[in-house]
């Protein structure tokens, strides 16, 4: 039961898309995720975001309310004040969002995995730090994480939303959710254990799979970035992440479509040159040798009345007549 409605307790299997349109029983839109296997996820997460992790750790130590911190960090992040800590924090929020989406409690692993795959995403990267924390603690901490988790709604939006939006979500999520959505004591878990982070990570992963499945309906698997396997979340998040990624090291993992166009530029220039040639009405090959584009000459309002020896030419436009015509 990776996903559970926080309102009525309805549970959904990992990868289920049902909650994407609200809880079928109560219509609630808040869910918590319980990863099945935390550690695996954690490991992956850790590996992904080593740099961040340290920061995350530090944050962990400090933090009681991971969510709150995360929110803060996110803010900082958004504001583009990326200290190590902030970076880690930022990642966490996403994870939190994910966790909320999925189900607060459950198995950390899925999320952790997803994150690992996610690396490209900032959130993921940040999450790694969380993961690192989480790794130590284990599953227990996960329960706490749910707070940080976003609502399913938020998740879906993230793609459109940039990191900034995410950050805001996270904040609200962390703060608001902690009270509302999160199963519990995210704060406790987070503060007490680094694990919470792991959980969040795990959550994220699990969510990713769910999102991925949902996405699969709309977007072919082929279109997804390499990392897509890990997390459906990743996909949704991924979009957001790209922005974040700039900061993060992970970018390389996901092949961005953006990179492809580079090869085409030359051809575009060639095309432009070709077009220029085609639209040129008189082409001077060398003095005394000309190629004429009759259609272009015909179509022009103005016409050339004098070609100069130096390659310049005089054009005339309708109704501006000169008396200097030579006979």
């Amino acid at each position, binding site marked *: 039961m990776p996903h559970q409605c926080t309102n009525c307790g309805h549970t959904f299997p990992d990868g289920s898309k049902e909650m994407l349109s609200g809880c079928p029983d109560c219509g609630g839109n808040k869910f918590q995720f319980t990863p099945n296997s935390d550690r695996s996820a954690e490991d992956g997460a850790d590996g992904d975001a080593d740099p961040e992790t340290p920061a995350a750790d530090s944050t962990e130590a400090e933090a009681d309310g991971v969510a709150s911190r995360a929110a803060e960090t996110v803010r900082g992040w958004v504001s583009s004040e990326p200290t190590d800590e902030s970076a880690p924090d930022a990642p966490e929020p996403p994870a939190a969002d994910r966790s909320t989406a999925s189900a607060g409690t459950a198995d950390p692993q899925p999320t952790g995995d997803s994150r690992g795959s996610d690396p490209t995403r900032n959130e993921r990267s940040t999450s790694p730090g969380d993961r690192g924390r989480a790794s130590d603690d284990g599953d227990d901490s996960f329960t706490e994480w749910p707070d940080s988790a976003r609502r399913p709604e938020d998740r879906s939006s993230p793609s459109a939303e940039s990191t900034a939006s995410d950050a805001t979500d996270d904040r609200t999520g962390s703060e608001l959710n902690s009270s509302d959505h999160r199963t519990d004591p995210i704060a406790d878990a987070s503060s007490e254990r680094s694990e919470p982070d792991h959980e969040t990570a795990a959550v994220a992963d699990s969510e990713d799979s769910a999102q991925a499945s949902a996405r699969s309906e709309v977007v072919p698997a082929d279109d997804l970035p390499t990392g897509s396997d890990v997390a459906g979340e990743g996909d949704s998040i991924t979009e957001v992440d790209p922005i974040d990624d700039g900061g993060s090291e992970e970018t390389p993992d996901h092949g961005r479509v953006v990179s492809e166009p580079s090869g085409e530029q030359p051809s575009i220039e060639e095309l432009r040159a070709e077009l220029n040639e085609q639209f040129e*009405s*008189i082409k001077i090959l060398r*003095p*005394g*040798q*000309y*190629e*004429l*584009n*009759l*259609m272009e*000459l*015909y*179509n*022009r309002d103005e*016409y*050339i*009345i*004098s*070609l100069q*020896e130096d390659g310049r030419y005089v054009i005339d436009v*309708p109704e501006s*007549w*000169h*008396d*200097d*015509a*030579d*006979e």
Partner: protein
Amino acid sequence: MGLLTGLKDSISRVTDRLFTDEQPKRIGIYGPPNAGKTTLANRIARDWTGDAVGTESHVPHETRRARRKEDVEIERDGRSVSIDIVDTPGVTTKVDYEEFTDEMEEDDAIRRSREATEGVAEAMHWLREDVDGVIYVLDSAEDPITQVNTMLIGIIESRDLPVLIFANKIDLDEASVKRIEDAFPQHKTVPLSAKEGQNMDEVYDNIAEYFG
């Protein structure tokens, strides 16, 4: 005075007459270089006004400025048709001074080439702006299916201008009017020799019929 001044005057005169029925049709004589356009224009002008239009030459691009003869009155069957004849530079897609270097100094050839290019631009411009009908002159000793001929006739057709195709130089042994008729079956083809004055009656009949 400059030619353009004359054109300006004539245009303003035409503008004044825009709302009258009497304005003569402006018939452009078009075709590739050396098809005999000026020879034809001079033939018509001499036949009906006594003046020549321009200098004829066996060297292509002798006509590098559009020249017109206005108010040429052609009488057919007791009926009078007044037209303005515009002799245009030969239209081509390539002008190369080396084509003339056998006939003149290189500098002159280069200048002739440049002027010819200007002439093509002018001819194309007038085709768009200032002709009411077209006499398309072809050398019947040459292959009529060329890029220039196809394109120009296409443009003329797109303008919905009345057009007559004159298969000139029928005095030459290699002349083939049928080749021209087959190339442009959608248009009336009139065989003639402007230089020798052959078949000019049919020429004038058709001018009066098409442009009167």
